[in-house]
């Protein structure tokens, strides 16, 4: 091998870049219209201390069962680029729905899920909120249940078009 140090560095960066690309496209198992990059749970692709590549993801909710599935899906894709790449799950900093990208928000709305509202500083949320219906756009909606089909969603109904819909909870 006659690679100059500069070539080695650019090779490593190239692999990390490719890893990021294939990992970013992994769909969320519960909301397949979103990728893990859209969700903001793909935090980093880096070189670990032992030289192997690490794909860092963070869970949405502590108990979210999708985390294990996402880890397996990421590994299945990164193996083609770098079989030694690992997935590392890091809790800090804690995920927030504010990390969902603009693209992600648009996809959610098109999919029929009201995107999350911006979070305030951590605190008990006791006030009333206005959530627009993703189908007809009316702000006249009501909460049916704070907890929906997955940990990250609440169930609402539109009073204008009478359709029920999911809302991505602010976290």
């Amino acid at each position: 091998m006659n690679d100059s140090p500069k070539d080695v560095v650019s090779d490593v960066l190239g692999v990390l870049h490719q890893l990021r690309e294939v990992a970013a496209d992994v769909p969320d198992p519960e909301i397949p219209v979103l990728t893990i990059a859209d969700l903001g749970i793909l935090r980093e692709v880096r070189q670990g201390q032992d030289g192997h590549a690490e794909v860092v993801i963070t869970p949405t909710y502590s108990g979210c069962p999708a985390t294990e599935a996402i880890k397996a899906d990421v590994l299945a894709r990164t193996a083609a680029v770098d079989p030694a790449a690992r997935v590392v799950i890091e809790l800090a900093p804690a995920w927030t729905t504010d990390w969902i990208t603009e693209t992600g928000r648009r996809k959610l709305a098109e999919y029929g899920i009201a995107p999350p509202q911006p979070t305030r500083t951590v605190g008990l949320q006791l006030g009333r909120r206005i959530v627009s219906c993703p189908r007809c756009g009316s702000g006249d909606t009501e909460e049916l249940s704070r907890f929906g089909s997955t940990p990250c969603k609440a169930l609402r109904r539109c009073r204008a078009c009478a359709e029920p819909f999911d809302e991505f909870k602010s976290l």
Partner: protein
Amino acid sequence: MTEHAEARAGAPNADVAAYAIRLGDDALILSQRLSEWTARSPEIEEDVALLNIALDLLGQARALLSYGGGFSGKSEDDLAYLREERSFTNVQLAELENGDFAVTMVRQLLFSAYQYELYRVLAGSTDAQLAAIAAKAIKEVAYHVEHSRTWVLRLGDGTQLSRERSQAALDAVWPFVHELFEDDALAERIAEHGVGPLPSALRDGWQATVLPVLAEATLTVPEDGWQPSGGRTGLHAQGFGYLLAELQHLHRSHPGASW
């Protein structure tokens, strides 16, 4: 998960481990209790809600038990499935039988408000992993407080029957809150090293959340009389054995079973 040998201002590993397991046991056991509501809730939305809360607690329990167990090479499964009753260090409030829906909701309000105060302080822990777990969990717990608050208001300030049953629930559950705020030698050492709050220091914040809800729900706060305790040292009520049997049966009958 983070490495175990990190600096935490000198707190002994054994203390951090026991403390993490304590908090993990609270979350695990209440999660197991809540899951008994599966397909039995008053309405389907509530079934989903209770199980979502149970799932959040299970996630917190997994993180806490994995961390606490890791100091001695034990996995979350070793701790959840292979310990005997006297080794569990959850507070008795977490294991209280579900009773009627009012009991479950009052218990949830009182416990979630406690967890909220606890995690708020723990998020600033000198122990990086406990801080990370708490910073994540507190967002979930805020939803638990809000959900149980809504139900306690609706039932307490509801019909005559729902009010009577809510008051009876509060009377039955209240004695078990005192244990949440008891200091012991471990808690004192943990607080000394800035790893976690002194339990007694959480009471004021907890009351500031809970008392206004109970007042608005037209419920009367019971006198502080009987104060059962002992969960932190492994003393549990009769129903705990049945809970453990259900929790551990599959794993013990089929070691290593997975899907």
